Structure formats: C-alpha cells, structure tokens
C-alpha cells in the first residue's frame, strides 16, 4: 500500500511539474494584472509595480492571446496619462467594462487606438476600462479624472447588454454589486458604497502557478466552443419589459449623467451602445438593445450624444457573415472594435474640431 501511494504521489508531482511547463510554453495560461483598490476614488485599478506586462489568453487552447501593459496610473494602456497642462491635443476618453479594458485584443486594435488613427493622430486617447464596471463606476471614474486634472474633450461611455440591469438596484433590494445606483421610493437616488476586495495572500501565490491559472481562467470554457460555450459567456440577458416600463432606469441614467457633468462640466458626453448581437445569430430582425431607447431619451433632454452600433454591426454581419465576437467568448473581436471606432470617429470628429 505504501509503495502504491508513494508511486501515485510521485506521478501526481511529476504531472504537476509537466503541466506547469505545458501551460507556460505550449498552451500559455492567462496572465492577468493584479488589482488594487484606490480608496480615495472607490475604484479598482491595476498595480503596475507588481506586474506591468503580461499575455492574456482565453479559451482552453489559448485561441486568443494578446499582450497587455499596465500604465503608471493602473490602466491597460501603453502610454501613461498626463494632466491637462502637459497635453496639447484634444483628449478623447472612453470608460467601460471588460470591453474597454481590452484584454481580449491586441493594444493597437483597441477602439480608442483605432479611433486615434482614424482621426489622424490629432487627438490623445485614454481608455479606462475595468471588468464589471457599470453606470455607478462611470461616476467614480469621472471623479477620478477630475481629481487627476484630466479633462476629456469628449468622454465616451460604452454601454453593453445587461449594464442597466446590474447597475441599478431596487431600494428594498440588497445591492448585488458595488457602486450600484439606488433609486428610492421617494424618487431620490444615491450611489451605493464601493466594495474593496482585500488582497488574499494564498491567491497571490496561486497565481504564480500556470496550472492553477489555466484551471481557473482558461478551463471554464468548452474547448470546442459552440452554443454551450456561448451560453456560458453570453452577456446578461436584457429584461426588455422592465427597462421600458420601469422609470427607475431612466432616472438612474439621468442621475449618472448629472453626476458626471458635475465632475466634468465642460466635457461632451457620448454613449456608445452595443448591438444585440445575439439577436443577429438567432435570425431576428435587428433591434437596438432596450437600453438604447432610454439613453436616447435622456440624452435628448440632458444634452449628451448617443452612438448606437446596431446598424454598423448588423450591416457587417449581414454582408460578410463574419462573427463580431470570439467562438469561445462573447467579447468583441478586432473587427467589432474597428467598426465601433469608425462609428465613434464619425460622431465625435465635429466635437473635437470645435475644441480649443
């Protein structure tokens, strides 16, 4: 028995070592930067001092691989942010979640970098993306920009499927995530407090293992992709009836716009709204996400702009049949980023021309 257990243990040890090598060399496990909570702003950014560069992979065979770089301010961007006094060009900033975080694509393919090239490098671009960010986080990010003396000429916020639902809490409902906008029965609104995730030592050690990173981050996907995988990584379903009939969502959105204008009074606000891509593949006629109608309504009243990606995305999909996301994951691929940049460039070019 002892001999059997010893041999088994030795095999497991050698297998672990072999797997470590395999998931570093052959199928590289995902590397992700280490998050740090900025108490002053109630925001989570990344800590460049711990790891500034890495390769992000997704999929069981690491089908998607892209390099990332955390700048001095803790965001995934090759260049550091500088204050207004040190810039000469107009500034376009995008806020968003994992789509703006941009780990799934190469840095040059990010919507803001493509935008910069399309605007002939006549504008500086900053991208502040953090996975899971919602409307409440945009308020905190705008306060962060103001505190850092970074005043965008144009501030674009990317709205994805499900952002409204997860960003707005009911008053008698426990906030499901931090920084939710709570709409009370008396009509008042407030931002729920941020939640910091304390650093856990054993997790930091676990991240050093390629096998552990592969199992945790890469291996939660079906290796052959397809409908099962898409279902697992699909954005949260939009509750169309709730959004359209429940005034709280419009109220929460208005609250957000007003709060951002308080921090960045001279900045022009633009909302870039994703398309209902799932509707394309289900052969439905393309309709904008339910949030689009609310954004349009509020923007008309509060002087912001909306760019809906339904038409450019659907036209591309219908013409080429090519997907706008990965087989194994619902995030945009580089084609989608390019199309989004083109639509955004067209919308914000006049806004940048008039900037001092």
């Amino acid at each position, binding site marked *: *028995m002892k001999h059997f257990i010893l041999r*088994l243990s030795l095999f497991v040890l050698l297998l672990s070592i*072999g797997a470590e090598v395999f998931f570093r060399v052959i199928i590289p496990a995902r590397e992700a930067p280490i998050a740090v909570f900025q108490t002053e702003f109630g925001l989570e950014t990344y800590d460049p001092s711990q790891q500034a560069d890495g390769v992000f992979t997704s999929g069981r065979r690491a089908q998607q691989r892209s390099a990332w770089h955390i700048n001095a301010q803790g965001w995934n961007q090759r260049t550091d942010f500088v204050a207004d006094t040190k810039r000469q060009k107009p500034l376009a900033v995008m806020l968003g979640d994992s789509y703006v975080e941009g780990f799934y694509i190469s840095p040059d393919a990010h919507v803001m970098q493509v935008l910069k090239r399309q605007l002939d490098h006549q504008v500086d671009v900053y991208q502040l993306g953090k996975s899971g960010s919602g409307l409440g986080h945009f308020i905190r990010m705008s306060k962060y920009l103001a505190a850092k003396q970074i005043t965008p000429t144009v501030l674009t916020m990317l709205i994805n499927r499900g952002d409204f639902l997860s960003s707005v809490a009911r008053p008698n409902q426990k906030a499901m995530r931090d920084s939710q906008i709570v709409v009370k029965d008396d009509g008042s609104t407030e931002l729920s407090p941020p939640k910091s995730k304390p650093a856990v030592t054993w997790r930091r050690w676990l991240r050093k293992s390629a096998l552990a990173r592969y199992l945790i981050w890469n291996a939660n996907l079906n290796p052959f992709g397809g409908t099962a995988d898409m279902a697992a990584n699909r954005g949260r379903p939009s509750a169309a009836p709730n959004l359209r009939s429940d005034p709280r969502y419009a109220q929460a959105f208005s609250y957000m716009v007003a709060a951002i204008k308080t921090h960045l009074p001279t900045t022009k606000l633009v909302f870039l709204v994703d398309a209902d891509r799932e509707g394309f593949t289900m052969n439905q006629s393309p309709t904008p996400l339910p949030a689009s109608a609310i954004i349009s309504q509020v923007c008309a009243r509060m002087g912001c702009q909306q760019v809906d990606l339904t038409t450019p995305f659907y036209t591309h999909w219908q013409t080429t049949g090519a997907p706008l996301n990965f087989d194994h994951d619902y995030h945009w691929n580089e084609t989608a980023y390019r199309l989004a940049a083109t639509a955004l460039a067209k919308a914000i070019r006049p806004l940048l021309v008039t900037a001092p």
Partner: protein
Amino acid sequence: MLFNSLSFALFLPVVFGLYWAAGTHRLRLQNLVVLVASYAFYGFWDARFLSLIILSSLVDFWVGKAIHRANHTTQRKRLLWLSCLTNLGMLGIFKYFNFFVDSARDALSLIGYTAPPMALEIILPVGISFYTFQTLSYTIDIYRRQLSPEEDPLAFFAFVSFFPQLVAGPIERARDLLPQFTKPRQFDPQLASEGLRQMLFGLVKKVVIADNLAILVETSFNEYAQLDGVALALGAFAFSIQLYCDFSGYSDMAIGTAKLLGIRLSRNFAYPYFATSMRAFWRRWHISLSTWFRDYVYIPLGGVRVTTARAITNVLVVFMVSGLWHGASWNFVIWGFLNGVYTLPALLKDRTVANAADRSGSFTRVAIDAARMTRTVALWTFSLIFFRADTLAASFGYIKHMVTTPWLSTVDHHDYVVMTCVGLGLLAVEWLNRSRPHALSIAHLSGWMRWSLYTLCCLVILVFGAVDGRDFVYFQF
C-alpha cells in the same frame, strides 16, 4: 455525485483511506464503510430515494432466506412473486406509470373515448432500473437453487448498494459479487493500478469525447430540418460514438473504482463496434443487461429450443422489453424491435458468430470483416435515431430528412468531420488494444511509456474535456 466531478474526486480518496484503514482482517468494518459510503453517494443525488434501495434490500434479504427455507414449490413461488412485485412494482410506479396511462389514453382515443388525464408527478430515482434487476437476480437464483442466501445483512446490503455500480451498472450477479463481500479483501497494488488506468481511460471517453460530441448531437437532433443528408448521417454516427463513450466510460470508471477497493466487477463492454454481426454485437454491448435478459427472460420463454416462429417471437419480445427498460417511450420499444430484427438472420441461420479479433487470415478475410463491422455499426447507428430522438415523429422526421434531403448543401460540415475523425481515432486506439480488457490496459509497457501515456491522457482531459458536468446518458434509465 458524478464520477467526473470535484465532489467525487474528494469523496473517493476519503473512502479509499477509510476502507483500507479498516484493515483486511475486519471484514464487517470494511463492509460498513462500503455501505455508509454507498448511501452517502446515492443520497448526494436525492436522499429521499434511499428508502427505495433500503426497501428493496430488506425485502429481498428476507425473501431470499425464506425461499431457501421453504419446501413447497407454491410457497417458494409466492415468495418469489413478492420479490418481483416489490422490485418491478417500484419500477412500474416510478418509471412506467405515466407511460402506460398515456398509451392507454391514446388507444382509447382511437375508439372515440377521451379518458381523463391521470399523470403522476414523480421523479425517476437514479439507478432504479439497475439495482432492482440486481436484487431480482439474487432471489431468482435462490429460487432456482443456484445460489444460497446470504446470512449477513451487512454484506448483502453492501452488495445491493455498492456505489461504483449502483446507479448505472454493471448489473452484477450475486454469485459473482456477493462472495467478494463475505471474504476478506487484500490490497492488491497491481489491481489498484489497473483500476486507476481504467478510470483514467473511462474519464477520457466520457469528458473528452462523449460530452463534446453531445453538443453536436444536440444540434443535429434539434435542428435536423435545417441540415443536409451528410450532416444527419454523421450526426447519427456521432451519437453512436457519444453513447458508447458515455456508457462504456462510466462502466470503466465503475470497474476501476471497484478495483481500487479490491473488488472485481464484470466486464460490460467488449469492443462492440468490432462485432461482425448484430448477434455478436449484443454479446459485446451492455453485457450485464444482455445476459440478464437472456438468463431471466429469454431462456425461461424457451430460448431457441422451440419452434422457429416461437423463437422469433421470443427474440423480438426480449428486445422490445429491453427497449422498454431503457425508457418509458415507444421510441425505445421500436429501437428494441429493430435490434431484435437485426439479430434474426443469424438466429435463423444458426451461424457461429466468429470474433474477428480471434481470426488471423488473408487480406480478403480482413476486408470481409471490415465490411461486416461497418454494416454492424451502420445498422446500430440507424436504430439509435429512435433511441436519441425525443419523439417518434422526430425520429421519422430525422430519417426522412436524412434520406430525402440533398446529401451536400451549404451546411458547414467542419465540426461533423472533426468529430467523425475523433470517433474513428478512438476506435483505432481500441482496435490496437482489442485483446486487452480496455485500451489503457498497458501494464506490459515500460514505466516511462506508461507514465507518458497517463500524462497525455490527463492533459487531454484538461485541454479538451468538457466542464459543464453533463449527466451520464444511462442515468435517465
């Protein structure tokens, strides 16, 4: 608790440790560990249904002893009927009640009578089709005076509930398994190593091949109206591979787990896709069920020792009942009937079915065998359309589309081709090891070669294994 789950990965080492720590000289303690672990394993699914296993165990333990003590045939028969009624009664209520009621209502509606709906809202307890048959074989063998009753209730209860084979077989005979619970078990490192190898191979078949094929098969059968003939044919073949890998994979994991505990279960699959006739196929597929029906239904009906017409009837009845065992649906009855028809030519010709693996011979013989194997797989795959489709209408719809739709259209066949290659690759690997109990039975290879293959299997599972924890197909039976 699925074999391919984290909970089982934690459960098994604990049971292994407690079992062997109980010591080879403390048989009752080891059996107690098995019993508690088995009830915990089953209770993980749904603790309420433990009562059914305990009821079946209690009734058959008592009935077995009573039959053995009884002298009069009438009394013996009555006791046997009690066992049959208890076990088949449980099966009938939980599995077949709604089927028979719905079928009766459909039949009555044909003559213009609308019967009121009368469905029971009950869950099918996992494994009920397996353990009821296992305990039934115990009482029947005692009745036939082929077996003496077990006096130790602990050993008997452990035999009935033995967790590796409790929920999806193999259906063990008491004469093979029960003695292993009455004799001390010694730890055998070679048996344990072989058990681990068999578990590993079973896991590869289940999570790498079966669960990934399941996605393609689901698409094929749910959207058959949008696919062409090639896709539908390959989709059916994909299901035949999925079913084989799912079920034989489970059996391998069950047998391997038992070997870790020093217990040998019977072989359940013997490379059925290498059979050169359907009759030979059924001696290689789900062997424990086939032999159960042979010994307890077919032979009592007379087997082949009757007129030709009666023999044909016996075969078809057995296969249709076997189909019904698989599921309470006319789809399964038709599936069984088809397979019965497939075996008739060999029955009528009374040919000795040769095992191609045993033959050595010329190229012509090899070519003939290959053609026969292909024919066998094609016939089997066709019957599985009824097995897999949700309804009879869907079965016929699938077949109609497969036959009438142009064989090649704009449908993307890439996934089908890949999966077909995966299936053929598995069969190739099994062909190379067809003389051994399973394809990873490689104790004869050098140490570094074995460890390399184990490592390859583990990496294949990590990289390609589906992680959505699909149930085993045979759990629904």
